[in-house]
């Protein structure tokens, strides 16, 4: 396959999506052919509360420029309470990253229901734009993992 040479910065975005709402929302965005950049790669998890802060740090270590977590709207969790824990955990984690001087805009939590395909696409477009503006992740990088 021909490799296209581009100089523009293409961010690497990892999106953790809960199986019941947000992953279905992402599928709906697909069904409705709503475009968002190919930089976003989705990892399916049963619930947003499955996402360990270690996964997020790992993503940054391995070269991600932004990590977004999508779950059911609070109150609508398939497992009743999972996203409430997510909300607390991620609030504290993001606050800590910010405290360490790491750009807080690189991490985000968004609630996307199975019916919100349009919101999913809009969220991803916005997040990619934000991260692209920030540029490459330098503050939480592991140089050994950078393919150069």
């Amino acid at each position: 396959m021909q490799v296209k040479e581009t100089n523009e910065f293409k961010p690497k975005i990892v999106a953790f999506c809960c199986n019941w709402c947000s992953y279905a929302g992402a599928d709906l965005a697909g069904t409705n052919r709503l475009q968002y950049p190919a930089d976003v790669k989705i990892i399916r998890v049963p619930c947003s509360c499955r996402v360990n802060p270690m996964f997020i740090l790992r993503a940054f270590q391995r070269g991600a420029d932004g990590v977004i977590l999508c779950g059911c709207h609070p109150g609508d969790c398939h497992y009743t309470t999972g996203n409430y824990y997510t909300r607390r955990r991620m609030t504290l984690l993001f606050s800590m990253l910010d405290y360490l001087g790491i750009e807080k805009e690189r991490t985000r939590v968004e609630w996307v229901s199975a019916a919100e395909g349009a919101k999913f696409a809009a969220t991803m477009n916005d997040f990619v734009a934000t991260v692209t503006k920030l540029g490459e992740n330098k503050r939480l990088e592991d140089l050994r993992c950078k393919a150069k």
Partner: protein
Amino acid sequence: MQSEMIKRAKELLASGEVARVVGWKAGEFDYDITPGVFTTAEELDSAFLYNDLCEANLSKYMIAQSRKEGKTLVFLKPCDTYSFSQLLKEHRILRENVYVIGVPCDGKVDVDTVKATGLTGICSMTSDGETVTVKTLYGDSTMSKADAMSERCINCKSKKHVVYDELLGEEGDVVADNHRFDMVEKIEAMTPDERFEFWRNELSRCIRCNACRNVCPACSCEKCVFDNEQSGAFNKGASDSFEENMFHIIRAFHVAGRCTDCGECSRVCPQNIPLHLLNRKFIKDINELYGEYQAGENADERAPLNTFTTEDVEPSIVYERGGKQ
């Protein structure tokens, strides 16, 4: 106080009520006081110490000691009882095997604080409760005790014991108006670049000696994720800036809502990294976002990360607040 403690310890040993005593004894240097286990009256007489230099939090030792044959007597300062109580809440200590004697504390003298005043070649330190006398190779000097205390004691959060079987000395109160979050606020007020610079400067000194982890009462996992090759976070020594950050972020996150702010992590750090400022950030956020919470204070209250309310703030609050841009 020291003689009173030795007397009670001897009585309890003699009556067979306890099989051993956990307290403090002199380490390599006489200002370097270390935890010790005593099983006889003679050992107590010859080595047991309690003075203004006994900084160590003994609660964590009870995880192992409480599983031994017979009861263990432990002396706990007010702030240590918070750690002890938190460990009880997490079922880590078998309460029935521990006899807790609460001892008073009006702040401990810290050798690193003394060194920071410029003194070098320190041979010994003594305190009479008011004044600290420091003998150095270059002569003696004195300073007020307040100047020799570490930040955690100056901003003491409580002089009240939350758990004990008996108390020696007078019971104190929770110190409501302490200033322990001042430094956190100062860092929060920095620009992201300054904060990054600040923490890089601190964390880049980490040599991953694991002293913070080993001393921390909340870090009592049977197997730490950083020692577990299967965990995905396995890492024996940081080989670059990421791993330095990773270890301390994850450690702080794992103890968030469980850390009682005893400050042992910063005390033992050979590189003098202010690790307690990471824990205090979580404590401050928890207090501000989810209501005042002091780990270890209340046995029935749920840890803030193990509970929620439907009206909790959204993570986006992080974007809305914070210091200068």
